[in-house]
């Protein structure tokens, strides 16, 4: 299956999900996604978190869909990252010798390993992994991705921070398979390690303050950071339970991205 078909399919399901969020209970959603094995232990739920029935108030809800489709979507993001770093490392004179080259070699190694791992995982589930799309890292001539190091760094930050949000959003859809869920979490934290390092290489903090994309980031990357200023988690408004100020509080919690927002970002770099 071509990735665009998957994307379109997920896109439609994203619409379905919105509808379900309005009309159906969480229990129905679990049923829909084959989560009957995961009983919702209502009795064991802490009081403060009981009322989570409606997620629709938060635009940045979890990315949801059938397990294989979510994995194929993740694979597409890994294809994007892997190719980006391969081309960057191959671009003569782009990445300075020394620490920077070593850093991107390590990141590149992981992204390529993630591609292989996800392909193998998807195959083991009896599904054919999506093929690699054709990427255009200039986004139609907007970015000099491999001719200008600052642009390369900025796109790297955007891709890594997007990866963190995408895996976070996708995790709930993987709950039917413990091994797959754990592996996805193990990739998720690696993306976060990458993001922290690239951000610090760019002179930023390793963590995201409010919804700030940070100095030097192109305006087109703002979608990667929209919603990161959220301070309500599981129905608990964190500003009311701690003395830590708003900046620190938003840094302390990373936010997921919904399917459509991830698609919008990825599609900038995918040739239709």
């Amino acid at each position, binding site marked *: 299956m071509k990735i665009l078909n998957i994307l379109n399919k997920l896109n439609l399901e994203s619409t379905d999900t919105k509808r379900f969020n309005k009309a159906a209970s*969480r229990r129905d959603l679990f049923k829909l996604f084959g*989560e009957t094995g995961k009983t919702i*232990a209502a009795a*064991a*739920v*802490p*009081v*403060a*978190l009981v009322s*989570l029935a409606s997620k629709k108030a938060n635009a940045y809800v*979890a990315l949801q869909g059938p397990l294989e489709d979510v994995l194929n979507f993740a694979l597409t993001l890994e294809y994007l990252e892997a190719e980006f770093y391969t081309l960057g490392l191959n671009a003569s004179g782009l990445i300075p010798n*020394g620490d*920077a080259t*070593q*850093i991107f*070699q*390590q990141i590149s190694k*992981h*992204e390529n*390993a*993630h591609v*292989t791992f996800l392909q193998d995982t998807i195959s083991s589930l009896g599904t054919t992994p999506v093929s690699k799309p054709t990427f255009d890292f200039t986004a139609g001539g907007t970015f000099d991705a491999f001719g200008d190091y600052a642009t390369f760094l900025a796109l790297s930050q955007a891709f890594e921070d997007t990866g963190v949000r995408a895996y*976070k959003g996708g*995790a*709930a859809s993987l*709950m039917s398979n413990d091994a797959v869920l*754990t*592996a996805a*979490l*193990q*990739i*998720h*934290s*690696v*993306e*976060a*390690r*990458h*993001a*922290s*390092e690239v951000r*610090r290489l760019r002179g930023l903090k*390793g*963590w995201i303050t409010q919804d700030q994309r940070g100095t030097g980031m192109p305006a087109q990357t703002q979608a990667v950071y929209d919603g990161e200023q959220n301070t309500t*988690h*599981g129905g*608990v408004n*964190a500003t*009311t*339970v*701690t*003395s*830590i*100020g708003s900046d*620190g509080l938003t*840094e*302390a*919690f*990373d*936010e997921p991205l919904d399917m459509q927002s991830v698609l919008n970002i990825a599609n900038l770099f995918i040739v239709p």
Partner: protein
Amino acid sequence: MTKPKLIKAGGQGMPHPLYASRRRFLAYAGFTVAGTTLLLSSCKDDDDDDDDPLAVNLGSGDVGILNYAYALEQLEAAFYTQVVATPYSGISSMESQIMNDLKNHEVAHRDFLKAALGSNAIQDLQVNFSSIDFNSRSSVLGAAKTFEDLGVAAYNGAGKLLQSADYLLIAGKIVSVEARHAAAIRSILDSSAQSFAGDDVVTASNGLDRAMVPADVLQAAADYLTTELNGSNLPQ
């Protein structure tokens, strides 16, 4: 409310294996500080922590996992609070900023989880940092690296134990920040430019970070806790 007990080390940097049992560590460290809890628990001669009536029971189900996370966040928050209160000698302004940020994040995690757990929350834990020399950069950053990597592995391993997608999302919001911390600490501590996601913690062949089961995490954390934790009712 009892404040976490912060014990400053003498500085001789007693080496100890990460996975050693707390009792064994206490036995050869032979320190004298601690409080009633430590004295009582160290007088006991049975080696099965799960049966210790003095241990704090984390509970079962999703509440147990959230309390498990809350315990780890209490540990990290107490650690960075001490680091910020008594910075190691020669700390740079950049490092000072990082320590202050990490303190804020871990305190925020701790306070949030406590509020989220409500009446199900475990008590405030007594910490034991006697193995850490807070005046030494390498000792402090080494401990920070241990705590952050342990936190990442703990959350990664706990995800599948949660029944609620909402709690999984909350855990996900926290673990990526712990991973950002781990990378930053490794970056300023270690000489290798690749340590932020080094081969010692991210498997080179598949690009996966570590995931640890609660029993192993609790055993590692026990080196830094006076309060004993009982995780025997946690999901497995």
